[in-house]
């Protein structure tokens, strides 16, 4: 029963493609998977926007949307109808073609990144040997779309936003990729499926071998997550759309459905980055404890995804935004060195083993590097809490 449930979607796909001729079967399967991904994550996008608004509202002691549908959960449908029926305004001076293509150029690569995510056991739409590379390659293509949007609008704010976005994405691409290299080193594979399988609990062990349970893995996970915040332009790294400074950044001149596409691409990017974080560090679809193996694998994946997205929302409800130069400093002076330090640490862990020796050797390196780098980052700017004096009365 559990196995059936686990392989439910795999069987379904198999059943749908089985009658087809051999030659086109993989392509049809890919198309169906893509359709399913779009449907599932499109719905996720809708629900997440509502949940985010409600959660942030609760953090701010408000009620949040509660008018459309039960508890306001159909708000996203209302929003969707609104954006679809809105007039699509293109500035007269805008570069019409590029302006039109930008949202598409942003959305397509983002959707492609989902193809290599293993949503469950045997549930990878495109099980490439170089899946991780595919993910990053597709993700890197979004930068250009952001530039296209900002440049073609012929708006000073959008140009500033585009410049910020590109600078930010390029800078965070490095720690984003580097933080995953440790996983590749330990696993010895670029295939996302293999990376997940390597994190399952070994026979006889009760705890899974998630990479986040190791000192280097925890640090790399946090780095990856921070870089994912930056890559998906989420607070506190939402400078490209910093609404208090440059109003909406690169998509300031977009309205209606095109704006919705940008919005959707942002959320899908968040999902795919979170999914990759789950895959690389949180064991993908594997259960944390061996005795929980009976829960269907895709449930684990989506559960972990939900936790990470909740984290994204939580952070957004809390932090102010960084400034551009601080963002750059943080990427190049903190995250990049730390990511580079994590690489040899992962190698040491590989040879020292999973036991106490590994912990004893690697944990101090990671913690020490974190403290020193953090102190140098903050200390150079003399940032600290201050004490204040009072006038003598």
């Amino acid at each position, binding site marked *: 029963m559990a196995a059936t449930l686990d392989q439910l979607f795999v069987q379904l796909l198999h059943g749908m493609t089985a009658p087809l001729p051999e030659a086109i079967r993989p392509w049809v399967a890919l198309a169906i998977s893509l359709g399913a991904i779009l449907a599932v994550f499109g719905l996720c996008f809708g629900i997440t926007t509502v949940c985010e608004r409600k959660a942030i509202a609760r953090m701010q002691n408000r009620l949040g949307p509660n008018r459309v549908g039960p508890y306001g959960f159909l708000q996203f449908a209302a929003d969707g109808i609104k954006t679809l029926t809105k007039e699509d305004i293109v500035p007269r001076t805008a570069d019409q073609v590029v302006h039109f293509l930008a949202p598409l150029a942003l959305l397509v690569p983002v959707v492609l990144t989902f193809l290599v995510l293993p949503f469950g056991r045997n549930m990878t739409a495109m099980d490439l*040997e170089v899946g991780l590379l*595919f993910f990053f390659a597709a993700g890197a293509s979004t930068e250009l779309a952001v530039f296209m949007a900002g440049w073609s609008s012929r708006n000073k704010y959008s140009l500033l936003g585009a410049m910020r976005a590109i600078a930010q994405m390029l800078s965070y691409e490095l720690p984003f990729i580097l933080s995953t290299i440790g996983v590749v080193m330990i696993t010895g594979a670029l295939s996302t499926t293999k990376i997940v399988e390597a994190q399952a609990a070994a026979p006889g062990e009760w705890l899974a071998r998630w990479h986040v349970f190791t000192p280097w893995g925890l640090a790399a996970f946090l780095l990856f997550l921070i870089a994912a915040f930056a890559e998906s332009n989420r607070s506190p790294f939402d400078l490209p759309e910093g609404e208090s400074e440059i109003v909406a950044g690169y998509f300031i001149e977009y309205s209606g459905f095109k704006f919705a596409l940008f919005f959707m691409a942002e959320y899908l990017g968040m999902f795919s980055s979170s999914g990759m974080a789950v895959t690389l560090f949180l064991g993908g679809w594997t259960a944390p404890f061996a005795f929980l193996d009976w829960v269907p694998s895709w449930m684990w994946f989506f559960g972990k995804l939900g936790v990470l997205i909740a984290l994204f929302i939580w952070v957004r409800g809390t932090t102010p935004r960084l400034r551009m130069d601080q963002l750059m400093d943080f990427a190049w002076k903190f995250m990049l060195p730390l990511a580079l330090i994590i690489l040899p640490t992962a190698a040491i862990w590989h040879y020292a083993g999973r036991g106490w020796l590994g912990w004893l050797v690697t944990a101090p390196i990671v913690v020490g590097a974190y403290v020193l780098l953090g102190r140098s980052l903050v200390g150079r700017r003399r940032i600290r809490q201050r004490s204040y004096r009072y006038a003598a009365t």
Partner: protein
Amino acid sequence: MSPIFYFLAMLTLGGAVAAMSLRNPVHCALSLVVTFVGLAGVYLGLGAHFLGLSQVLVYVGAVAILLVFVLLLTRGSGKDEFDERPDRWWPALGVGGGLGGVLIAVVLAQPGLALRTAPPELPTVRALGESLMTDFVLPLQVVGVLLTAALIGAAVLALSDRRRTPQDSGPVTSREEGETRR
């Protein structure tokens, strides 16, 4: 020679032609990106997954951005169009054609290369990595040193022209004493 190949070839060539013929430099750069993507598609179609994806990652993700940045930062605003038509296209054609001829000649002169036959086996990433780390370790290191030197040089060039901002130098406190405003 599947339809996909023809599509990719058309994409690649069309992008290249557009990159050469369009008037707006940013459009040219974006067309070049199409070429890069098409080329990556060709690599993927040949089974060179690693190469194809690296092509996207490096060329689309970095080189194209660099091109666009250079275009935007070095040209004044409002000069989006090329000012004059390239009238000396004869020498350009000569140089380009010569280079193309040399490349084609080199490719055709490769021993044992027969078109229309797939390579016997697809090299895995592991094999690629191992050969890079064993057989080609010296070239790899040389290239690495070269690139590092270029990077440092660029950083030095950029640093010499950098202006100090208050954010870099900590709190600005040294406004002249007793100065009145304006």
